[in-house]
């Protein structure tokens, strides 16, 4: 039946160029994939898409607030914009991007061929994606798009009793609840997968104390995810019971408590900040050593400090609630625990400085973003200590000072680190380097825009401007400051456009990267760029924390000193 020629032909011939295949076939391959690298890329692309959407929402708010007595959008739309901006950025931009980076890099860095549960990995991604789609369906669900549809308008922390059926009729709050519930399932699946991968799939010789710092920090992050997403899930189930079955969890009329929602939400909400910032620290801890040409300073202390941050972060949530009026010893406890978390964070900053100290620093775009990230972490941490003092917080809680503080963390550290990581690992993912000139433009424009917006934003906060305010009168003296804040946003938009253009342009025209363009030391740089489906033809064996240093310097390997 079959002649010799057709038998000798392999069933699947590698295609000459992926682009030559029909679009349907290529997208099908991505939709059914269980490969951690493809899922990682999908996570990050999905996160970047929502980063842009959330950025547009922020820009609408800043346009509204640029001038006194402005009526660019309606108050209802403004409420929807700040709710959707916060929810989107936390759950559908930052979380997918940090999970995507972990998904892509953790198996490569520990010398594994895939995650522990590849199909669960795909399931988790699609659940997260579904969550985002449900949340954004709210814009066209219900009454349609005119005037921004029926998007949730209860704020990203959705305080009771505003979310009760009586005060939030219709389905806008339900989109918020169900979108987050569904994406929470995805987050727990991914966290479980990453923890199991790190514990069970390390290559021979990769002991826990030889793990790259990124892997360690993501391990602690994902352990944290496992226990903090659930309280939000529980609280949201209770809210659904309240809204649809007439339960009384948050119903003060029947003896329920609105304050307990705050507790449940912030038991999730505060550690969530660390879930986002630890992966950012992870990126800093990989980029800074490579571009300082020195191994990381104080590896063990760094790991222990991160563990300390993970533990303490579970006991600080009520510093979001000083203005509620808790008993004095509760205030004292949360002041102390919040101030205490500055100690391990400070240790990390000294470790990064120690790594750069005396190093031959290479000021590539990735390194510039990392250095800025460290500096901004210091400032964000200092305003954090200010807000940790209950009396200070009574004065400035829920003002623009708080907004400026946490955007300093989220933009100044997390987004800067994500940018840094994008320049650093882009060559591994695509095989091509990003353009450095455009990268420098991106860096300086974003740095100027960031500082113009968020340094200045502290001042209207101190002058008494509350968060979530729709508009204000000219006589308040907030006008000039707000205009400056809004002008900063323009710089940031241009910078992000530079970045997106760079991402797209470099994938076609970027310089060929080779396996190891940065002369780095972790395992992912030993395989090809982009890595093959199976990552490593031969499972590597490592003998120290810097396996590639050992390989490149057989005369002076690291393992001699461990």
């Amino acid at each position, binding site marked *: 039946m079959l002649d010799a020629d057709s038998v000798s032909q392999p069933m699947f011939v590698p295609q000459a160029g992926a682009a030559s295949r029909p679009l349907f076939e290529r997208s099908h391959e991505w939709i059914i994939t269980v490969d951690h690298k493809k899922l990682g890329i999908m996570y990050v692309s999905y996160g970047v898409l929502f980063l842009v959407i959330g950025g547009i929402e922020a820009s609408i708010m800043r346009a509204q607030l640029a001038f006194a007595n402005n009526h660019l959008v309606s108050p209802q739309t403004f409420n929807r914009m700040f709710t959707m901006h916060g929810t989107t950025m936390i759950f559908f931009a930052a979380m997918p991007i940090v999970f995507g980076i972990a998904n892509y890099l953790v198996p490569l860095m520990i010398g594994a061929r895939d995650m522990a549960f590849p199909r669960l990995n795909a399931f988790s991604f699609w659940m997260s994606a579904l969550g985002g789609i449900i949340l954004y369906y709210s814009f066209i669900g219900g009454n349609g798009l005119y005037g921004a549809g029926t998007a949730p308008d209860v704020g990203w922390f959705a305080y009771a009793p505003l979310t009760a059926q009586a005060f939030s009729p219709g389905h806008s709050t339900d989109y918020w609840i169900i979108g987050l519930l569904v994406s929470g399932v995805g987050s727990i699946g991914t966290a479980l997968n990453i923890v199991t991968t790190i514990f069970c799939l390390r290559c021979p010789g990769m002991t826990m104390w030889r793990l790259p710092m990124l892997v360690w920090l993501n391990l602690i992050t994902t352990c944290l995810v496992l226990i903090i997403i*659930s309280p939000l899930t529980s609280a949201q189930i209770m809210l659904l019971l309240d809204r649809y079955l007439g*339960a009384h*969890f948050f119903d003060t009329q029947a003896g329920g408590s609105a304050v307990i929602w705050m507790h449940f939400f912030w038991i999730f909400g505060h550690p969530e900040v660390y879930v986002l910032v630890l992966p950012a620290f992870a990126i800093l801890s990989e980029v800074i050593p490579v571009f300082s040409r020195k191994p990381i300073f104080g590896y063990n202390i760094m790991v222990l400090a991160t563990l300390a941050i993970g533990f303490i972060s579970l006991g600080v949530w009520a510093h979001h609630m000083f203005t509620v009026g808790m008993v004095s010893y509760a205030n004292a406890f949360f002041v102390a625990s919040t101030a205490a978390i500055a100690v391990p964070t400070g240790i990390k900053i000294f470790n990064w400085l120690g790594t750069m100290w005396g190093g031959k620093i290479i000021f590539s775009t990735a390194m510039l973003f990392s250095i800025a990230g460290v500096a901004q972490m210091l400032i964000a941490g200092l305003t954090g200590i200010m807000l940790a003092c209950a009396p200070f917080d009574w004065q400035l809680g829920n003002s623009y000072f708080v907004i400026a503080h946490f955007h300093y963390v989220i933009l100044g550290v997390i987004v800067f680190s994500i940018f840094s990581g994008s320049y650093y690992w882009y060559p591994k993912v695509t095989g091509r380097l990003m353009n450095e000139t455009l990268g420098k433009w991106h860096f300086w424009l974003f740095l100027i825009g960031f500082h113009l917006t968020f340094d200045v934003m502290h001042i209207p906060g101190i002058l008494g401007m509350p968060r979530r305010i729709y508009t204000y009168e000219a006589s308040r003296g907030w006008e000039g400051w707000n205009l400056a804040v809004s002008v900063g946003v323009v710089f940031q938009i241009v910078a992000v456009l530079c970045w997106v253009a760079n991402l797209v342009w470099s994938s076609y025209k970027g310089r060929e990267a080779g396996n190891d363009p940065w002369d780095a030391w972790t395992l992912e740089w030993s395989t090809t760029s982009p890595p093959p489906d199976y990552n490593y033809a031969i499972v590597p064996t490592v003998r120290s924390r810097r396996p590639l240093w050992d390989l490149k310097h057989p005369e002076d390997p690291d393992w001699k000193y461990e």
Partner: protein
Amino acid sequence: MAAPSIALKSPEVPLSHELKGHVGMLCLIAAESAIFSIFVVAYLYYAGKSLTGPYPNEVLHTPIFNSICLFSSSFTIVMAERAMKRNQIRLFGTWWLFTIVLGVIFILGTAREWYGLIYQDGLTIRTNLFGTTFYSLVGLHAFHVIVGLTGLTIIMIFTVLGYVMHEHEYRIGVFAMYWHFVDAVWVVVLSVVYVIAK
């Protein structure tokens, strides 16, 4: 530097793929425990704060028989695992069936208890804070029992059809961890609902 392999010398850590099911299940149990602990906290926080009756000491009767059934199912599943280890598939199936029966008795007991509470004592989820927290906490646990029973039944069907073999011992063990967890949660729910906050 061409080869990706780095000095193929004596491996210090063997690849431990064998444990990944256990680690994954432990992670899931950690996440589930956090869900339950929030509901337990809500139950304790709202205990005695109901504005109207019925109150727990008037209507709740400790489900001793039910609890004994559920706790014994942890024992029968261990016996099933042991039979599996010795490659006695028929014995495994028998113990597995006992586990399902005990779980079903537990769920039917809960159903009867709820029926009595709703139709005789007039306690629903919207009656008062006790109803709200009672049905949500006990219901959350019952939901987990039903999920467990579904899994048990699927494995039972495969056993009857002859697909379950000695090589599935590991997967059976991972699933049994979930069932033990469901039982352990009942220890907490039982003591909180029927003892501490009554």
